[in-house]
Structure formats: C-alpha cells, structure tokens
C-alpha cells in the first residue's frame, strides 16, 4: 500500500489572477518569429519575437512555450517603449505534498468510503501537521490520515497562491503606452547541440577521397521550435570545456592535427566563430535529430600510411598491427579548402563490387583551414611490427665516451672536435632493439616506425649509436624511421641506443 494520499484539487481558476498571457490550445504555439542559434557545446540561443498587448504602466507578463529547460537567469526582453522592472522565476510547484504542507492550519474536507457498503461520509478536518503523516483534528478527535489504510479522499478548498504547475518565468515591465507591439524575448537553453559528421569515400588506387560534411543537430529541450531561422556556430563559448586529461595507451592514436593551419575559411565568421546558417526556416522538433549538408569536396588528395609507435624498450610477444592512417589537408590548395568543425569522420571504401563499405572512423577536433590531418582509421590487418629488445648490457665509460664526441664546423671551415667534460652518471647502458616489419599486402607499403621514450628523464641523453637505416629526429623524445616494406615481404630494422643509468 503505497501512494496513499488521494487528492482532488479544484483548479477552478489559476492561482494568480493577473496572468495576462492567454493559454493556447495544445496544437497551437505561443511562439512568435523564432531565430535559433545553436552552439556545439550543448547550448542554444533562442530569439523569440512575439506580438503582445501591453497595458500602459506596469504589468506582469508570462511567456508560455519557451524551452522547458530555459536558463531563467539569461532571459532578456526588449521592445519599443518598455522598461524592465524585474524578472522572476517561480518554481514552487503544485504537488500533493506541497498542497498538504501549505494546508497546515487550514480546514479541508474528508470523504470516507466504507469498504464494504460503499457509503460515503463527509467530515471537515483541520490539518494540524504534515510531517511524516498528516495529523488531523476532526471535531474533538485527533487522527492520522489514512492510518488504517481505508479509502479517504481529501478535498482542498483552494490552491495556495504561490504554487505553480511548472516553473514559471515572468517579467514585470513598465510600458509608456497601451497597445499591441512586438517584443523580443532572448534566452539560452541547454540540451540543444550539434556536431559535424563527415562521410569520406577513399579511393586507394587513385589516392583521392570524396568528403561530405553533414551537420547533425539534436533537440532534447522538451520543446519544439517552429519555423525557426536556424544558425549553427562552431566554436566554444566557454565554461564547459572538458578537462584535458591525456590517456596514455600503448600504440595510441596520435594527434589528428599534425600541423595547425593558418588559412581563413571563406565562411561567415564572427569573432572566433564560424557560422553555418541553414538555408531556410525549419522546425526543430523535440527529440529530433536533423541533418543538413555543409561540405561536399570531390577527389581531395589523400594517402594511406601506416604508423607504429613503440614504447621505450618494449618487446612484443607477437607481431602487433600498425595503425592505418589517412593523410590529407584542409588547405585551399590540394585540400578540403575549409575549416572543419569538430565531429566524426567515417571512412568508406568500395569493395570489389563497387559498393562502399565502412572501414573505420575517427573523431576530429575543430580544425583550422590549412591543417595537415592524419586520421587513424583502425589497425591494419596485414601490416605488423614486432619490436624486440635483443640485448641490454652495461657499457664502460670509455664506450660511452666513444659516442660522446662532437664536432663543430666553424664559419671559416675549420673544425673542432672533442668530448664532453663532465659525466652525468657513473653507470651506462646499451640496448639493441630489433623491429621486424611484415607486410602481407600485395603492394609495397611504407611504415612510419616511431620510437618514443628517449627522454625518460631530462638527464637521460639518449643516443643512437648504430641503426640499419637513418632515423629522423622529431623531438627530444621521439625518432621515426620511414621503413619501406616490400609486397608480401618483411624488413628487419635494428638500432642500438646508449643511455646513462
């Protein structure tokens, strides 16, 4: 026996008689001319231009059919000849509990129904307390409401002033004259957002890719926005940035943007934001997902690459897949020629029958035009790398010194060479790594093999004293070998590292 309190409320009249906005029938909306601007961090700016009849002097205006999630403190009302006195957001809600609590000290009507005979008896009762059980005074008796579980209806004479059906926004305005006029209501609401979805069709034989960009917008505000002029804004307005906690995984996908671009897109821009207006008015229904195309680029140059990142002194039990990477540019020349709003790129390739099949996806952040992009679409089935630490041994100070030599070429062409004076450690180590790269594809591939962790500590001074092909120094931490692996073949790459400690 739960939910014992049966409440019949007499809602003959709204609690506050001065409500001036009329209640529309369910199919009709009180919304006026709508302009909705949607940001892609779960936020939308709604501008709603409504015709309202205002009396001269002060009046309180309520606004139905605003977003059910309206951020009340962001409301602004503007119009000719009005001044704002105050804005109120009342959320003391009408519920059985609130009704009973506000009735303490008041008299209510009880209708008891006899469980066997069905006979009804009416009594007036005064509510003494409503703290964990409603204590009633009925004549000279004190009872607890429905203590015995028998049916009792409680009828309240009225609804207290301040209780509302739902949170209510009202603006008190001072008007210089009476009459109808347009008023502009502006507010922010969460639960509307958008992101970009990219469909990329990669033609591996031609090294080309077709890219379509779709804007996907969602409305979970609980409210539909009818016939709204809609604009999407790429960029972050602030305060809702997720913390940047990098997660370290072995062979983790490297950054998608390899180099940030500096070109300005031809799109409309305000401040730091790119604007994507929808071409015509549309209705954004509640719980609706809507997609609109914004980008369609054919045959942008794209290359397939393979990347493998090895952690410091990591040996693998079995060959590990290299990452399959698509490299392209967002530049004006030989690229997509646009700034890319954050979203997901889904990559498709045609199968033997010519049907596009999904081959992987990758998120991208907001990407300026002119950026170099490398999308990790997945792990390659046929291209693998097996790193092995062949040997790690202590070396003598002399062996360390042997690799310590440096040479300075002066402007006049003379040279000085020598050794560093001070030793950072008394203990030195040498590690030989072997990387076996295998390719089961019928074409030759090039694998970018990264060895990371060269500066475990900033004192480490790691050196490569021997390598089977020259490496490229990327940073203090990383080197890369661009290794060409023949079709259906394998390559062994060896390198010897010397480190203190």
């Amino acid at each position, binding site marked *: 026996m739960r939910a014992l309190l049966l409440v019949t409320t007499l809602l003959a009249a709204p609690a506050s008689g001065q409500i001036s906005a009329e209640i529309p029938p369910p199919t009709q909306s009180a919304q006026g001319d709508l302009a909705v601007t949607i940001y892609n961090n779960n936020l939308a700016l709604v501008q709603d231009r409504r015709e309202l009849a205002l009396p001269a002097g002060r009046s309180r205006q309520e606004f139905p059919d605003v977003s059910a999630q309206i951020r009340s403190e*962001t409301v602004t009302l503007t119009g000719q000849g009005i001044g704002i006195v105050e804005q109120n957001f009342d*959320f003391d809600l009408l519920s059985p509990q609130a009704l009973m609590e506000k009735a303490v000290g008041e008299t209510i009507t009880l209708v008891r129904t006899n469980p066997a005979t069905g006979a009804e008896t009416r009594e007036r009762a005064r509510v003494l307390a409503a703290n964990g059980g409603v204590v009633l005074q009925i004549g000279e008796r004190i009872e607890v409401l429905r203590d015995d579980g028998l049916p009792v209806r409680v009828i309240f004479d009225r609804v207290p002033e301040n209780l509302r059906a739902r949170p209510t926004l009202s603006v008190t305005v001072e008007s210089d004259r009476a009459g109808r006029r347009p008023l502009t209501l502006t507010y922010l609401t969460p639960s509307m957002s958008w992101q970009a979805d990219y469909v990329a069709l990669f033609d591996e034989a031609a090294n080309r890719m077709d890219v379509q960009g779709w804007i996907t917008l969602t409305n979970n505000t609980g409210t539909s926005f009818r016939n709204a002029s809609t604009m999407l804004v790429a960029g972050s307005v602030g305060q809702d940035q997720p913390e940047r906690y990098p997660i370290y995984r072995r062979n983790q996908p490297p950054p998608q943007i390899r180099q940030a671009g500096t070109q300005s897109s031809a799109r409309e821009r305000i401040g730091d934001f790119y604007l994507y207006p929808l071409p015509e008015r549309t209705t954004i229904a509640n719980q609706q997902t809507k997609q609109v195309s914004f980008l369609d680029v054919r045959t942008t140059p794209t290359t397939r690459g393979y990347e493998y990142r090895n952690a410091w002194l990591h040996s693998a039990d079995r060959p590990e897949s290299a990452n399959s990477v698509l490299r392209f540019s967002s530049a004006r020349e030989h690229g997509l020629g646009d700034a890319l709003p954050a979203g997901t790129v889904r990559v498709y390739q045609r199968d033997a029958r010519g049907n596009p099949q999904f081959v992987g996806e990758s998120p991208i952040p907001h990407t300026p035009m002119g950026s170099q992009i490398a999308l990790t679409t997945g792990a390659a089935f046929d291209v693998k790398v097996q790193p092995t630490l062949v040997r790690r041994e202590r070396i003598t100070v002399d062996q360390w010194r042997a690799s310590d030599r440096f040479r300075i070429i002066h402007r006049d062409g003379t040279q000085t060479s020598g050794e560093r004076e001070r030793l950072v450690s008394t203990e030195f180590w040498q590690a030989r790594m072997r990387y076996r790269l295998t390719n089961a594809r019928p074409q030759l591939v090039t694998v970018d093999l990264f060895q990371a962790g060269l500066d475990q500590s900033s004192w480490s001074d790691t050196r490569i004293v021997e390598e089977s092909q020259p490496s490229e120094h990327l940073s203090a931490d990383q080197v890369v070998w661009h290794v060409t692996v023949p079709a259906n073949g394998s390559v062994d790459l060896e390198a010897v590292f010397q480190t203190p400690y």
Partner: protein
Amino acid sequence: MRSARATAAALAWLAAVPAAAQNVITSAGPETAAVTVYRDPDRETGRMLNLGWLGGYALISETRTVALPAGESMVRFEGVASGAFAETAIVTGFPEGIVERNRDADLLSAATLLDRSLARRVRLRRTSPATGEVREQEAVIRSGAGGAVVLQTAEGFEALRCTGLPETLVYDGVPAGLTARPTLSVRLRSSAPATARITLSYLAAGFDWQANYVGTLSPDGRRLDLFAWLTLASMDDTSFPDASTQAVAGQPHRERPEWQPPRPAELRLRCWGQGRGEELYDGEAIVVTGTRIHGPNLAALQAQAPAAMEAQQEDLGDLKLYRIPEPVTVASHSQKQVALLHREGVRVRQVYRADIDRDRIGEDPAPARRMLLTRNRSAEGLGLPLPAGRVVMFGAGAARPVMLGAGAIADHAVGEDVEVQFGDAIGVMTSLRRISTKEGRGTYELVVSNDHSRRIEFEAMLHFGDIRTRARLAPRGDARLWRVTVPANGRAVLRFGGAEN
C-alpha cells in the same frame, strides 16, 4: 483538562507550552519585512546559483504588532522563514523586555503523536472489511518504542496492526510541546495590557545571489556596453511579499552553520511474523523543483531594454550593499532579477592566452583561450565595485545576436585589473615540442598559429624554471609571460631553454 481545551482559541491547540495559566498569543505573520541576501561563501566564483540548494543566507527583519494582556504571556511567531537560525533571532520592541526566547522543533507527526501518548488512554477504531461496521474500543498504549505498538484492551494485550483488520488509533488531543513547524517564541511579562510593535530579526539559510553581466562588444572589438543583473534566489518555504530587499557583496565571515531542514520522525510499525513493516503514510511526493544545475551556465543576454528600476549601491563597512529601490516580493522557491548597473563604451582589449608546461609536450595542437582585459577605473569607463558573477558577451551589429563568450569574474574593487576568460579560440592553436634535453634542461619550441585574416595579440604563460630566451618575458606569478603579435594567417615561434618545474 477538557474544559481548558474547549476554551482555547482556534489556534491554541498548537501551543508549545502546557502551562494553562499562561496566555498564548500567536503572531501569524509579519506586517513588513526586509530581506538582505548574503552570498554562499563556498560557491566558486562564477558557478551558477543552484536553485535546488542555495548555500547563502539572508538577514530577515520583520515588524509585527502584538496585543499583550497583563501578566505572563507566550508570544509565538509564525510565518518566519523555514530556514531561520533560531540562535540568531533578535526581538526588540516589547515594552518590558522578555524573559526567555525559545525555538520549538519537536514536530507533531504520526510518530511523535504515538510516542507521547504512551501509557495514555486512546481509542482503537476497527472497521470490518465484510460489513463495514466501525467499532471503537478503549485502549492504553503500553509500548510505543522501536516501531511496534502493544495495546492493552479490555480483552487483554494486543499488537497494533497485526490483526489484518483496518485499524487505527484515535487520540483525544495533541500532546503538549509538539508543533506543526519549527517555531520561535518568547515568554514575557507585562504589567498592563499593551499593544507592542516589535521587530524580529534573524538569519535564515537557503538564499543566495550573484551578478549576471551582459556585455555587448562593438564591431571593432574595443568597446563594451556592460549591463548587469542582480540575481537573487530563495529556496525558503516562506514568501516575503513587498519586502525591502538588499544584497551584500564582500566576504563577511560566517562559521559554516549546521543547518538541516527539519526532518520529522518517521513512523514505521513492525509486527510479528510477516517480517514486513507496514507504512502508515509515506510522504512519497518529493518535490523536485525546476532547476538545472549542469552544463554551461550563462548570464542574461544582449541589448538590454532600459531598466525601469536599478539597484543602488552603498558602502556598508567593508562590504558593498545593493538596495532594490522599491519593495519587491521575495517569493518562496523563486529567483528574481533586477538591474544592477549599466556602463557604456567600456574600453577593453582582446588577447589570446595559453598555459604552456611540460604536459603539453607532444600533445595535439591545442586551442588558445580567449581573454577580455580591462581595468576597473573611470578612464576605461568603469570605476565602480564589480561584485562577482557570470559574464556573457555578445557581438554588436550582426543581424541576430551571436554570443561571443561566457565567463566569470570574482569581486573587483575599483582600480583592479579585470580579466575575463571565455572559451577556446578554435583558429588559434599552440603546440610545444622539446627539441633536445641536456642535463636537466630542455630546449623547446612553441608555435602559435593564427587562421584569422587579421593579426592577433597572444600571450603564453610559460611554466618552466630558469627560462633563457632571446625574447623579452615578463614575470607573472610563478610563470613567465611571453607577449607576441601573431601576423594575419601566420605563425609565431618562441625557442627557449628551461628547466622543468
């Protein structure tokens, strides 16, 4: 006993004090009230008011008129804020002073009614489910402890609610000392009948306020029209109509009071055998008030209608007091906004800023933050105390409002530098590379890219020790600040050596 009750005034059965000789006078509510709202000292700067749980407090001063008979009386104050801290109450205006002051929070509920009726005579009412016949018999409560009740009837000893019949206890009266709600009262003596006009002041929990700034940036980005709302909110159950209302900025010290909403004792009776407690009444309806807590929280919007009423600021010791010039209603569970200040043509500067430390090495190119800088003095068009709050900025001149950013500021005195941090700039990216390390020092390369077709001002906060570089750096806290102008569609590069902090 019986005759005493019969003569009691309509409300007097709620009397907290049994002494029959005493007059009990109930003051039902205030005639006028003044509400001064203090902020939650523990709310982070810029965090939106949580309308469901407000951590600030208010000083409430009420005036009431009480007619006193000669002799000793008990004056009960009803209609005070439900969050009142009784220990802070100050009562002035009684001609002969008061004897004692009480707060009674022993609440009347089904559980306390039963508990206080131990060893007293009650009536046991049973309803036959077959015939509907109602039978009442006398009983004495012999045990009321621990969720089970043993009754003594003419037939022997029985356990309540273990019969399978609908049964309940009917009491003759409310035990003394139980109140419907926590109540403040004073006991006093008067030598002659008198009418006293008294003031009751107390602090109450469940209020808060903040400023909501709305800036409109000129198209050249150098001038800001600044408007602010005073946003105050109450989660109290009591409304204060037409109250003189103030808000206080600054940091008055207050020990964190231990305040819990009064929670009545629950009554759960347990019987033998079934192992299932029967609940008399579960106050099931939990009122969820209409608040939204998560996500970006932003303040009111652009192009303000002229305010018909603006709060006035005055100094209050080391605090700033904002007075709403006309009486307004501080309603229960509501939020209210009135104009706080308005300044036009404030001189501002926009810069991009990034924090650079070792965690950024090798990470994705990351967007810089957008900052708005000014100084709070009259030369810049400000020069007035700025209470803490949220800031939203819009761009002027566009066909539709576009929000450029949302941020927050702390309290700012006149003369202080004001920095507002907005969101990320998606076209201004930074990346950091460590080129080499030697003996605990690294050589780093910081690259800033700009996709705007105009030059931008950029600042990097370098969090490294012992920085050496050719560029000029300014100290800023523990960090060093690098200022640079990044050319339109270009890059700026800083090479520096530094120790890792």
